């Protein structure tokens, strides 16, 4: 098992493409997107009542090598500052398949 980083981003669906472009640019080995999640945050008080309109959020999950984090953090911070959303990083171990990430 190899040690990797786990990035979680939650933001308005409209920002999704912008966020994925950042991940692609950082050449992460992959990512997973869960669409139509709802929530409450500092800015998105409109989702207060958890109405599931076109204004729902997307949840992006990406496991990648520690070295990528700095670049991703730097590029993602201004996007979140401007359009809202949150990003968290934690630790994980990858179960090695043939091609591993770590």
């Amino acid at each position: 098992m190899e040690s990797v980083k786990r990035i979680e981003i939650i933001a308005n669906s409209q920002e999704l493409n912008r966020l994925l472009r950042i991940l692609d640019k950082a050449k992460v080995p992959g990512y997973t997107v869960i669409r139509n999640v709802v929530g409450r945050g500092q800015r998105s008080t409109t989702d207060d009542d958890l109405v599931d309109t076109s204004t729902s959020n997307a949840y992006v999950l990406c496991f990648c090598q520690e070295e990528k984090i700095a670049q991703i953090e730097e590029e993602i911070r201004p996007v979140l500052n401007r359009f809202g959303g949150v990003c968290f990083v934690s630790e994980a171990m990858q179960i090695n398949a043939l091609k591993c990430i770590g």
Partner: protein
Amino acid sequence: MDFNLIVSNILNPPVLFFFLGMLAVFVKSDLEIPSPLPKLFSLYLLFAIGFKGGVELIKSGLSREVILIILAAIFMACVVPIYTFFLLRIKLDLYNAAAIAATYGSISAVTFITAGSFLQQLDISYGGYMVAALALMESPAIIVGLILVKLAAPSEDGDREFAWSEVLQEAFLNSSVFLLVGSLVIGLLTGEHGWEVLSPFTQGLFYGVLTFFLLDMGLVAAKRIKDLKTTGFFLIGFAIIIPVVNAGLGIGLAKLIGMSQGDALLFAVLCASASYIAVPAAMRMTVPEANPSLYVSAALAVTFPFNIIVGIPLYLYVINLFWA
């Protein structure tokens, strides 16, 4: 005022189901129309109304009257966001004023469709070109709103500059404009023949789908009402008075260029309605400084119900007075 009009509007299944949806929220029933079913209804309605408009447009052709109506539509879509912007600046900051102004300069397709079915029941006809006016009034306010921000914003940051291509994208190619215009063009191209094969679908189900969709709109609008606590009286007043004023301007213009009564009602409704999907989506991206709960709630929790319940029959009443 002609009380009968209000009653015959309210005693309509779609309007009653709108009330039922609101009631469900007030009494805390767990009734919901889960996503993406409302999307299915709205895709259907845009498709059906666009297609019908296209088929009828090919019959009527592009007369001088039609061109005048379309120019009037674009005119109103540009003027409303400008004048409301300056009104809104009295109480609100630049960004929120621009976003709300854009919202009220644009239109709500469901309000238009509800007015159309109201006319149909009263046997008042209207032209297929009104659908073209609907399509053309959705986008300009987005552009105008952004120009206002650009002109009034203190220091221009590069980010906003960069967004222009995305803005035009959002304004003219957002899914509702795209599907509406696309269906209209396909209606034009296939004409009578296409109509025949599609009408059991586009006509037969229309009223039922509208009814279901308004049930959902009732749920959504009522859920937004509690947001109004934070919006303040100024915005609530704005959300009721401005639609009436805009409808009045629309009716005046309609009289001026000699629209029929049916066309005049639809035009008034377009002027009076506010966007709660396309414009908010565009504003979220381009004026993220504005607070979505202000512009969405005003349009959705106040203006939309007001137009559906009181506005439509009221505007028709006024039109009947002046056209008589």
